[in-house]
């Protein structure tokens, strides 16, 4: 057991019971660290359940700014009897267990290699509060007070935090502060053991914000000009539309009439949700839906129609682990192939991969531009980790001079100028044709939208060359799309290593940290973060110029690797998968471990 202080560098895990008010107490702990200017990452690990099952909240504090999950629990706050035994086992040797000592811990739970910090939480509550609800709620706040004392928090941070939290309900501030004090007083008076996890104010975060990706997507849809949303509830995407609703209440009310500049429909299922979104976009409104894997599966037929009929739409896919039973509340990046090629026939869809709440905001807004410019679905591939966990992020910003890019839409005057309108006529030779919105002109510009084949003038035809011409034009449009989509991010300006590491979405946090860890081992890798599909030239060059590329992804089947192989013809020997698919966000040590392991294999292979 080391005596060395761990300042601003540790992991705390809270083991709670779902639905007992622990979430806001745990957030208070996390937010306090954030307010002290120290990088911090919380992860909710929760069951598919409303009340009663175990739930965990893990907070990593990292002065170096590593915001990925980290293995190894330094301190466990165990207040759930149900999971207590396993929780105790999961603390790293030399770590701590803070637990409710109102009831005696069974002897066989004891470990000699960790420190026990007993607090009779329930007893304190029973003595202090008469109301059963308050006893339950403040139990959580008391352990936050105890932690703050142990870690030597600057207590003033709680005053300002609670002040903000209870603006307008100031009556609630004092009881909360009091509960915090109960915890801290107990530690002061009773705990004499070792404690080496400390927090020191740093102010490293400047103007950063802390929020979740789903709220950011909802806000991005407001800024991007969405006027219609249709959806069907599914975790972890539900809060995207809920955030959109909340922001719409704030920003989309017509002052003079009190009426709304938005319509939001909870559909009967995901098929209807995407059908509505297609109808609205066809009719010239910016519209979106949000879903997760099972919903994406249901939307497949319509996605094919939208691709072929060339109707813009924005779909936010908050990925999770597979089917609706089992682990639907855990994270994964496992819808990539399904989304990229969703539907029947020859289809390919634009995908965007945000990594931070700021990017969720930016890319959602951008998705509306892209889908209208390219007249095709754009799928934002986020995941449960990004969508539902709070992340430290750059603050949101918006360029007011930027106009919405509505793409090639002909208005009344344009139609007046035109001899004969051809909906699918490739006038500009970029594969993107001109469309009209119903109701534009009394005699010109109407056309019939179909999922079956048509000629350049949108007339029904089963003529083979016409069908093929159209399919080839869609390929041309796809190539044009490469110039529209956001560029990949390079981590080394010059490719100077033989090895590259490629990642996207929420793997960014762990991958950046892994690159630093590898550097310490004197193993240099070049990094690339992909932001979109189709792959841009930067990504193509990166993949071609490195001898080996590690592809980090959070699914079992190496879906991004497959996509790269299929689309770019990169040989499988070059691409080494680094995978994580246990439902928890990937960690840097996991990446480093897999890379070193496969390097050994690669070397063996190449020296034979």
């Amino acid at each position, binding site marked *: 057991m080391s005596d060395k202080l761990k300042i601003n560098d540790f992991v705390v895990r809270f083991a709670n019971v779902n639905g007992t008010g622990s979430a806001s107490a745990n957030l208070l702990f996390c937010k306090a660290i*954030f*307010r002290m200017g120290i990088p911090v990452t919380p992860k909710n690990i929760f069951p598919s359940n409303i009340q009663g099952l175990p739930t965990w909240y893990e907070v990593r504090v990292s002065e170096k700014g590593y915001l990925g999950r980290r293995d190894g629990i330094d301190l466990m706050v165990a207040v759930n009897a149900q999971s207590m035994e396993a929780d105790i086992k999961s603390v790293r040797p030399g770590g701590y267990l803070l637990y409710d000592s109102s009831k005696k811990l069974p002897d066989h739970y004891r470990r000699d290699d960790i420190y026990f910090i007993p607090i009779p939480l329930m007893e304190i509550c029973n003595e202090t509060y008469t109301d059963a609800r308050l006893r339950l709620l403040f139990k959580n706040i008391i352990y936050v007070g105890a932690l703050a004392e142990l870690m030597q928090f600057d207590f003033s941070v709680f005053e300002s935090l609670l002040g903000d939290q209870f603006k307008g309900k100031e009556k609630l501030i004092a009881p909360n502060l009091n509960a915090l004090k109960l915890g801290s007083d107990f530690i002061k008076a009773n705990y004499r053991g070792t404690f080496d996890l400390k927090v020191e104010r740093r102010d490293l975060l400047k*103007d*950063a*914000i*802390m929020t979740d990706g789903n709220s950011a997507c909802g806000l991005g849809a*407001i*800024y991007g*000009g969405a*006027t*219609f949303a*249709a959806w069907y509830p599914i975790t972890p995407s539900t809060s995207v539309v809920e955030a959109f609703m909340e922001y719409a209440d704030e*920003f989309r009310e*017509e002052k003079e*009439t*009190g*009426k*709304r*500049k938005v*319509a939001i*429909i909870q*559909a*009967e299922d995901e*098929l*209807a949700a*995407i*059908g*509505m979104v*297609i*109808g*609205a*976009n*066809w*009719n*010239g*409104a910016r*519209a979106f839906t949000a879903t997760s894997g099972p919903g994406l599966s249901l939307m497949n*037929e*319509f996605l094919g*129609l939208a691709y072929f009929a060339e109707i813009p739409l924005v779909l936010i896919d908050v990925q999770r682990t597979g089917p609706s039973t089992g682990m639907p509340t855990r994270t994964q990046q496992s819808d990539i192939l399904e989304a990229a090629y969703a539907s029947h026939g020859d289809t390919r869809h634009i995908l965007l991969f945000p990594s931070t709440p700021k990017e969720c905001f930016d890319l959602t807004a951008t998705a509306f531009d892209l889908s209208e410019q390219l007249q095709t679905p754009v799928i934002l591939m986020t995941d449960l980790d990004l969508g539902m966990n709070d992340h430290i992020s750059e*603050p*949101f*910003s*918006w*360029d007011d001079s930027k*106009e*919405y890019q509505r793409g090639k839409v002909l208005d009344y005057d344009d139609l007046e100028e035109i001899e004969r309108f051809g909906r699918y006529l490739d006038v500009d030779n970029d594969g993107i044709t001109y469309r009209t919105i*119903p*109701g534009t002109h*009394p*005699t010109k*510009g*109407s056309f*019939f*939208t*179909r*999922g079956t084949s048509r000629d350049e003038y949108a*007339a*029904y*035809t089963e003529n083979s060359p016409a069908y093929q011409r159209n399919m080839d034009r869609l390929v041309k449009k796809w190539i044009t799309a490469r110039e529209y989509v956001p560029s990949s991010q390079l981590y080394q300006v010059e490719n100077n290593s033989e090895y590259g590491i490629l990642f996207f979405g929420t793997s960014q946090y762990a991958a950046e940290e892994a690159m630093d860890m590898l550097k310490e081992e004197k193993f240099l890798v070049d990094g690339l973060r992909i932001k979109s599909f189709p792959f841009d030239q930067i990504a193509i060059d990166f993949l071609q110029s490195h001898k080996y590329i590690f592809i980090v992804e959070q699914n079992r089947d190496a879906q991004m690797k497959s996509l790269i192989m299929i689309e770019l013809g990169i040989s499988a020997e070059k691409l080494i998968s680094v995978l994580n698919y246990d439902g928890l966000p990937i960690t840097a040590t996991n990446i480093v471990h897999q890379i070193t392991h496969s390097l050994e294999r690669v070397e063996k292979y190449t020296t034979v």
Partner: protein
Amino acid sequence: MTFIKPKFRHPDLPKNKLGYTLSYYEGALSTLCAGCGHDSISAAIIQSAFEMNIEPHKLAKLSGIGCSSKTPTYFLGNSHGFNSVHGRMPSVATGANMANKDLIYLGVSGDGDTASIGMGQFVHVIRRNLKMIYIVMNNGCYGLTKGQDSATADNGSISKAGIVNQFQAIDLCGLAIELGATFVAQSFSGDKKQLIPLIKAAMAHNGFAFINVISPCVTFNNNKGSTKSYDFVRGHLEATGTFDFVPEMEEITTTYESGEKHAIKLHDGSLLQFNKLDSDWDPLDRFSAMKAVHQAREKNEIITGLLYLNQGAMDLHELVNTCDRPLNTLKKEDLCPGNGALASINAGLR
């Protein structure tokens, strides 16, 4: 192959108030089987739009998949159209309508498209009282996939292959009334005189207007045992009373003996005049409409006409309180809160 009709028309053809002739409301040449009931319904739609002086570009026609869903190609060639996917026209119409409240939405579907694969969407579009005209061209079979029984095929009816249908039929009008559809009518493709006023009234209705039109499939379901054949339908029709539709502002020319006349004013000022009413059936009363539907079923009759009308319900736009300007006309200035608003949002997240 594409089919374009010759455009030449005699200069003296009658024009409507907008100066358009009937032919302006036609579409491409039909590719359905000769004698298909669906073509008669297309003709009735053309006539109705002409008589209602509808600007073709102010109407959007949407459909699912099937022979019936193909028909929007064959009428209103100057309107935007959308042939979507099987059974999902209601959702596409819902989104389209939400984007622009100023257009008329005409949805066409089949009995397979509506009563089987699309049942969920049919039910929910009624529940939302989307302002649209929803026509089912009901032939009791899947025409386009060559004659399988549909869920509206009557129990005991015999398909062309000689197979007796063992299952209960879904009565779309009864269901629509039960679900609270605000305009429910039933008619027969062969009865233009009744169908046209019904379509016109549906066009004037401020809410979800459903018309179930029995429309025989001459190729797969016009045989002796079928209850959706021309012969059977003609022999079992029971009109609920003839009725006229009088558009707003038009002079009412028909006069009625008192006691026989029953007029209902629609929200836009137009009138529905019923010439004869069954004594115990009132189209404004849901219970009596339900009863009439049930009684007809018991008697093996096909009750036709406007079965139920409710003008009081709010349509979806009113329910979700959208602004008067169509959503698809709103600009960045209307929609984007701008960088200024982000300062306080960011501050709230620190």
